[in-house]
């Protein structure tokens, strides 16, 4: 290529870049709706590319959303975090809280025609809890003493200790019921759910059709469902704008804001229990000095963050994972100290950092986290904390457990229906994902009480104390709870966004 040609192509590249960026919202064809007898219409959902489609391994929203359409949970959690029937039509609990008995709905059958039996449920949960298989769920279910089919449609779970959240555990994301003996769950998709797979081209799309024999009356409402996979959320939203898809869930606040002004869309925003957690490693310098932890907390203005980063969507945080949605447990008793960079600076000086503190702030590149990091950097600057923002792709940030190693990091935590989960996996001493490497005896004790007692009042008290401890000395800052966002073409109805978007009931959606 001559120098001249190169000049031209470079100029062209510049022009193309403008065009690309400016042309983000090009309109395209309107959605097609195919009329059918009862179930009608086709829905195209944008999602990230799913990686693992064996229920035992699935975790991302897109994976759960797909599996939730193909398979059924034994019991389900609704948008109010209440346990509701799914495959199990009804259940009972023994007085000592150690025996649970479920009766399966009649008429439930796998897509290959065979009925769903108690044996399938036993097989499913035995697999998930088998310590030999080392599945992610094995520790979740290690409290189960035994599972037996006490009839063709009746299953009995026996526990070792009482577990007030056992029903929630049973409706864990992974706990989709497979046909007994299934070996190729990730490719065969023989579920009992409202949709069956017609075709799947990995990294591109998955076509599903309504399961005409679905046992829940009136579901599914659609004749067909298509998952179209996108690399990032911006692209998904642009596809919705352009009419290539009908439904998008999960997106950064700013993108959602832009959709709110768009014609022809129904936008849904619900608060969730998910949050971004800023944490400082407490097992080594500088985070092992409580004064430093306190300084970080004093240097942060959570309200301002909630307004600018979350654009006021969701809920403001109080440094604890027990959010306002957990109405029974949430408490504002302990006041959150007001921002005071001066005091923070003094504390740092006392801790031996009279000239301030310089730290790398590691952030995954997803969601509002980079913005959060930038705002924190600016706020902390006043207190003499110089945070050097290091934005990493999610795969790098979480890969090789690097996120558990760094001193200062921001981690996103998804929404769970019970607060105990967060305590058990991220806060108690030695917890698997205790990224702050924090150890607090009082908190450990309270968490244990809350996790075992059957007394609701006692549990509420424990949670309140935990919230106090975290505000006082927890090496974490939780500035906000996410809102979950969704937007759908307004030709559809029945879209009830779940806090965990993947658990949104797609079978309830129908054409207006």
């Amino acid at each position: 290529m001559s120098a001249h040609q190169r000049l031209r192509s470079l100029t062209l590249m510049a022009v193309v870049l403008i065009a690309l960026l400016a042309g983000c919202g090009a309109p395209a064809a309107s959605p097609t709706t195919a009329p059918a007898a009862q179930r009608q219409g086709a829905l195209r959902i944008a999602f990230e590319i799913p990686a693992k489609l064996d229920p035992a391994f699935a975790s991302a929203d897109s994976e759960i959303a797909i599996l939730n359409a193909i398979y059924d949970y034994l019991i389900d959690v609704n948008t109010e975090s209440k346990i509701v029937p799914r495959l199990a039509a009804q259940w009972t609990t023994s007085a000592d809280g150690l025996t649970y008995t479920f009766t399966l709905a009649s008429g439930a059958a796998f897509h290959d025609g065979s009925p769903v039996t108690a044996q399938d449920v036993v097989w499913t949960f035995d697999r998930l809890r088998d310590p030999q298989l080392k599945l992610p769920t094995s520790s979740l279910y290690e409290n189960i003493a035994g599972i037996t089919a006490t009839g063709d449609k009746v299953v009995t779970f026996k526990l070792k200790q009482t577990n007030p959240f056992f029903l929630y555990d049973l409706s864990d994301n992974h706990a989709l019921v497979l046909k007994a003996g299934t070996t190729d769950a990730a490719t065969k998709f023989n579920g009992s759910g409202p949709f069956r797979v017609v075709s799947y081209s990995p990294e591109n799309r998955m076509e599903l059709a309504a399961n005409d024999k679905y046992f829940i009356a009136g579901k599914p409402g659609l004749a067909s469902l298509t998952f179209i996979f996108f690399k990032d959320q911006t692209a998904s939203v642009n596809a919705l704008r352009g009419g290539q898809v009908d439904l998008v869930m999960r997106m950064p606040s700013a993108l959602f804001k832009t959709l709110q002004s768009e014609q022809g869309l129904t936008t849904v925003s619900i608060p969730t229990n998910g949050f971004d957690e800023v944490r400082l490693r407490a097992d080594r310098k500088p985070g092992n000095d409580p004064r430093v932890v306190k300084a970080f907390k004093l240097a942060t203005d959570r309200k301002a963050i909630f307004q600018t980063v979350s654009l006021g969507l969701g809920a403001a945080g109080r440094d604890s994972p027990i959010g306002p949605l957990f109405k029974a447990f949430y408490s504002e008793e302990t006041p959150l100290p007001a921002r005071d960079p001066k005091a923070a600076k003094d504390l740092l000086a006392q801790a031996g950092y009279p000239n301030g503190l310089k730290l790398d702030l590691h952030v995954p590149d997803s969601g509002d986290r980079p913005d959060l990091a930038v705002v924190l950097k600016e706020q902390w600057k006043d207190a003499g904390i110089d945070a050097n923002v290091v934005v990493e792709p999610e795969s790098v940030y979480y890969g090789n457990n690097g996120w558990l190693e760094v001193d200062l990091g921001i981690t996103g935590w998804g929404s769970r229906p019970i607060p105990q989960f967060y305590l058990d996996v991220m806060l108690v001493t030695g917890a698997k994902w205790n990224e702050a490497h924090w150890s607090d005896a009082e908190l450990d004790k309270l968490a244990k009480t809350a996790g075992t007692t059957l007394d609701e009042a006692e549990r509420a008290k424990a949670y309140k104390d935990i919230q106090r401890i975290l505000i006082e000395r927890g090496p974490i800052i939780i500035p906000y709870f996410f809102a979950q966002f969704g937007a759908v073409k307004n030709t559809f109805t029945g879209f009830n966004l779940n806090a965990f978007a993947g658990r949104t009931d797609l079978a309830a959606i129908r054409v207006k």
Partner: protein
Amino acid sequence: MADEGAPPFLSVLYAQAASAFGTSVVLLFLFVAVFGPLFAPYSPTQQIASEARQPPSPQHWFGADRLGRDVFSRVVYGARDIISLAGLGSLLAVIAGTLFGLISGYRGGLFDELLFRLFDAFLSLPSLLLALLLLGTLGPSRNSVLIVIVFVYTPIVARVVRSVVLGVRHKGFIEAAQMRGEAGWYILFREILPSVLPALAVEAALRFSYAIFLVSSLGFLGVGVQPPNPDWGLMVSEGRNTISLTPWALYFPVGAISLLVIGVNLMADGVRRALQGEA
């Protein structure tokens, strides 16, 4: 060089409308880069939450972004950042490439052969890919980006220089210098380098514009300069998410990148024309 005849460089560049435009743009950006802090109304990272997402106004000429930062100030400081980074990077690459090209081309032999086989191997990779590979090992930071620019562009410059050297090294005036017993460095820098300069000037301008593009691209991909630095590419990438909320936060940096790249290119074209017309 000559006491007479050679018209001042700028007047040559202003002889043609296109290169005059390009040169003006580059000079404007240089001015902004040098004196920007004097007239930028805000700090590039200062967040005024209450003014977040304000459209352009007398208060915020280019509007305010989603975090309440003044886009104009960010673009201005961004010019300083990108011009210094791309400028320093391409300057170092030009110096290193010139040294490699001069010495290797003049000496020839096995060293030359091996070095340029290696360079060819580098050049066979697209520069963005090479940059990403390097950044993967270096980790993202301003210095890494600088190293990447130098690393990616040195072989390209060296190649250009070497090709000129190969064309010159057997010419009579080099042999005349050898007949005088001149030292190697004298021949390289006094006799050969001037012949390389025209091609080098164009190449330097080209490298500069590519470096701007590379820095922006890396920023855009999030592997280059880190937030909250007012890197234009980073601003474009962030602004993309808020395109309908704060379009100004996208369009101004995009416009700045395009304008500067086009400006440098038009100027490079002018430089090339001026030097070709002269030599």
